């Protein structure tokens, strides 16, 4: 009788743990960039050059199979608040035709950032359109 109870209790516990894990995993939110490990550190100019030289190889390195964090350092070319809750911080690349566009939530943009400020940014690299695009960006530090 005791053994039967033990089996039932074990089965219920296993079921509860499994169900809880499944529920939490299903509802898991997208990870915050600040808490994710940095996979690559690169300057803005190098990042653009890598994409322009070999886009497929750069996608493999910086975009990856699963989303990964890239830390980019450079000088701010432009700050572009879009009025939709996000601000684009565009980094100089040495190429007038293309930049590194880093999408921040407005509240994540340090208030002392201006055009010409040297910065370091963590973000999820999503690839190359006209510019290299990083989303969910956060400031690392003012250099």
């Amino acid at each position: 009788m005791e053994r039967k109870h033990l089996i039932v209790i074990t089965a219920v516990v296993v079921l509860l743990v499994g169900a809880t894990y499944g529920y939490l995993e299903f509802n898991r939110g997208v990870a915050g960039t600040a808490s994710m490990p940095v996979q690559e550190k690169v300057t803005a100019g190098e990042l653009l050059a890598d994409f322009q030289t070999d886009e497929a190889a750069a996608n493999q390195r910086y975009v990856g199979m699963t989303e990964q964090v890239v830390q980019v350092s450079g000088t701010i070319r432009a700050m572009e608040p879009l009025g939709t809750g996000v601000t684009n911080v565009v980094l100089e690349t040495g190429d007038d035709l293309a930049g590194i566009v880093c999408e921040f939530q407005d509240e994540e943009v340090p208030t002392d950032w201006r055009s010409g400020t040297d910065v370091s940014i963590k973000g999820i690299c999503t690839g190359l359109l006209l510019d290299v695009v990083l989303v969910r960006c956060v400031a690392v530090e003012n250099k």
Partner: protein
Amino acid sequence: MRTLAYLTLALAMLPASLSAQERFATRNGHINFFSGTPVENIEADNNKVTSVFDASTGAIEFAALIKAFEFEKALMQEHFNENYMESNTHPKANFKGKVSGFTAADAMKAGSYDVDVSGDLTIHGVTKPLTTKATFVVNADGTIKANSDFSVRPEDHGIAIPGVVRKNIAEQIKVKVDLTYARM
């Protein structure tokens, strides 16, 4: 500087003889897609769509990075990229087409215009024709706000959905496009 980048894209896609006055561009366009079923709703947004529109010819083009679509739930985003869109193999979606019912003269005066859009939509490496309606609103500041809603069938673009989750994903995915163009 950034205008120069738009110009480069425009020159690549449009006849060089056209006046830049009639070209419009954005790199912050928005695409939302929504899949609604009794089992679950799936929705994602991409705020980094690049597009160029030439009002003199009606030529329009836009491109989006698949990995720039953001979901509320991480698991949905992972499945979207890895299992369905295979975004490592097909990192971009794009549309190339033509707008009819809107002229260069319309772009010079504020107002709302119902237009037709037709062209080729490439998703997951598969190109299919797309014809839809859109609204172009010319604002007093000279910008053009373009909106369009249409539906896409995943299977039309070679996106395989396993039978076990078929009821979780709508047969027709609703797509909303919002682009605010600035004159180049």
